């Protein structure tokens, strides 16, 4: 298996080519720093993303509470997580970094508030 990856670590955006199998990188080329090499391998073996979205909030002047996944989530879980989040309603008070959905989709990752509403 071979994948072309554009590095997103810094603005240069190196074109990294990675070859390997599901659980091993055999060849990685085109990166120009250590962080780029790590990113290329991770992106080849198992792409992850920070998910940011909103949940409905009751009792605040605002309609929505901004939230994020505390750690990056496996990319393939993102739309499943969005489904769970769309059915969630939280109540005030909420402080920044409170877990509003612990262990979303059994990923081991919490969805946490990024804003505070009294």
């Amino acid at each position, binding site marked *: 298996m071979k994948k072309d990856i554009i590095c997103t670590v810094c*603005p240069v955006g190196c074109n990294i080519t990675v070859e390997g199998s599901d659980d091993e990188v055999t060849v990685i080329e085109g990166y120009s720093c250590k962080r780029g090499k790590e990113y290329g391998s991770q992106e080849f073996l198992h792409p992850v993303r920070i998910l940011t979205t909103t949940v409905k909030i009751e009792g605040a002047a605002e309609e*929505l509470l901004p939230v994020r996944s505390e750690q990056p989530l496996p990319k393939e879980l993102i739309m499943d997580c969005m489904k769970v989040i769309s059915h969630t309603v939280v109540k005030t008070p909420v402080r920044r970094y409170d877990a509003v959905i612990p262990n979303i989709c059994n990923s081991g990752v919490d969805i946490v508030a990024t804003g505070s509403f009294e």
Partner: protein
Amino acid sequence: MYEVTCDVAIIGGGPAGLSAAVAAKKEGAEKVLIIERDKNIGGILQQCIHPGFGLSYFKQELTGPEYAGRFGEEALKLGVEVLRDSMVLEIDPGNQMIVCVSSENGMTKVTADSIVLAMGCREKTRANIRIPGTRPAGIYTAGAAQRLVNRQNIMVGKNVVILGSGDIGMIMARRMSLEGAKVLAVIEIMDFLAGLTRNKVQCLDDFGIPLKLSHTITGIVGNERVEGVYVAQVDENKKPRKETEEFIACDTLLLSVGLLPENELTRKAQISISDVTNGPDVNQYMQTSIPSVFACGNVVHVNDLVDNVTVESMQAGKHAARYAMDKISDNPKEIQCVTGNNVRYLCPQRLRLDDQGKVKLFFRVLAPEADVRLQAKSNGRIIAVKKERLVNPGEMCSIQIPVGELDSDVVVEVIKEAVF
């Protein structure tokens, strides 16, 4: 009339205003007042719920609300006061006066020793770029759609075309996709991406959204609601090639076609404005042509990273506080910063020579270029050099120069490195 007196008055409670307020307080200004037209402080960052902020300032990737939250809380803890829901109508630096209005207090007169302009910018609209066609519902600027979706819980459409590959446009492409809409295409008139590469990867490629470079929208169709748009390739003069025109059926068009610093108050106060940035020209103290008025953030020049806004806004806040405490001399000798090869503008545009410290000059290039040397010259002598692997108009460049000993204008240029 309701009256307030302060040392430093800051217009706008977004990232620029909050950073300026924090710095003014820390410099020793006693009473620092932010005047904000929204219900809450934080500005546009409140709706920028995505990550990518703070990598250079906090060395940590934060979302907009987290970044704004940190500065907002710090400002309030330091005792910065805020007039919320208050719209500034006029500034009159000659009389050290600001007039604003709010439902709570009615007409309000604020008297301040120094003023910091931190009003930010606003989006270009359909009228600014003159797209032909009918005028149906369903056409939004990307930032307006972002506010509706992220703060007001109003979904703006189902099948979406986005014009402009700026960061806000790409981020909205991802946001709309996550919320269940189908984004059919992102259309960009230039032959290169306007925003950051990482946003193309994470916002477009992740969701299989096509990016059409060298294309533009040639017409909008629909009476009540948008029914679709005509899209065509453009030639090297950015003229649409009629034979390439295709129709994309959609119900929503988002425009991410650039930002304009919001300078109505600045113009009315007869503060000098740069033709290139559309913002006030400033020196390294972020001081405008009127010595008691400072400016920072997107009202000066449109930034791509809030971290840079924070750094320059802290200069504005610090020196506005010093001005209020009579620690800055009026009418210093100044030199100009001049644009050389492949440099569109420089900020600050002027340098006070009574400050011998180092100054970081921010600038944007005119065209993308690889393997270049950024250099600053004065009197024919090179005073600073920096190598870059890649420069492009979407990403701000900077170079640090020593001001000590300078006596004539500084030219900044981008030179192609010979490759052996």
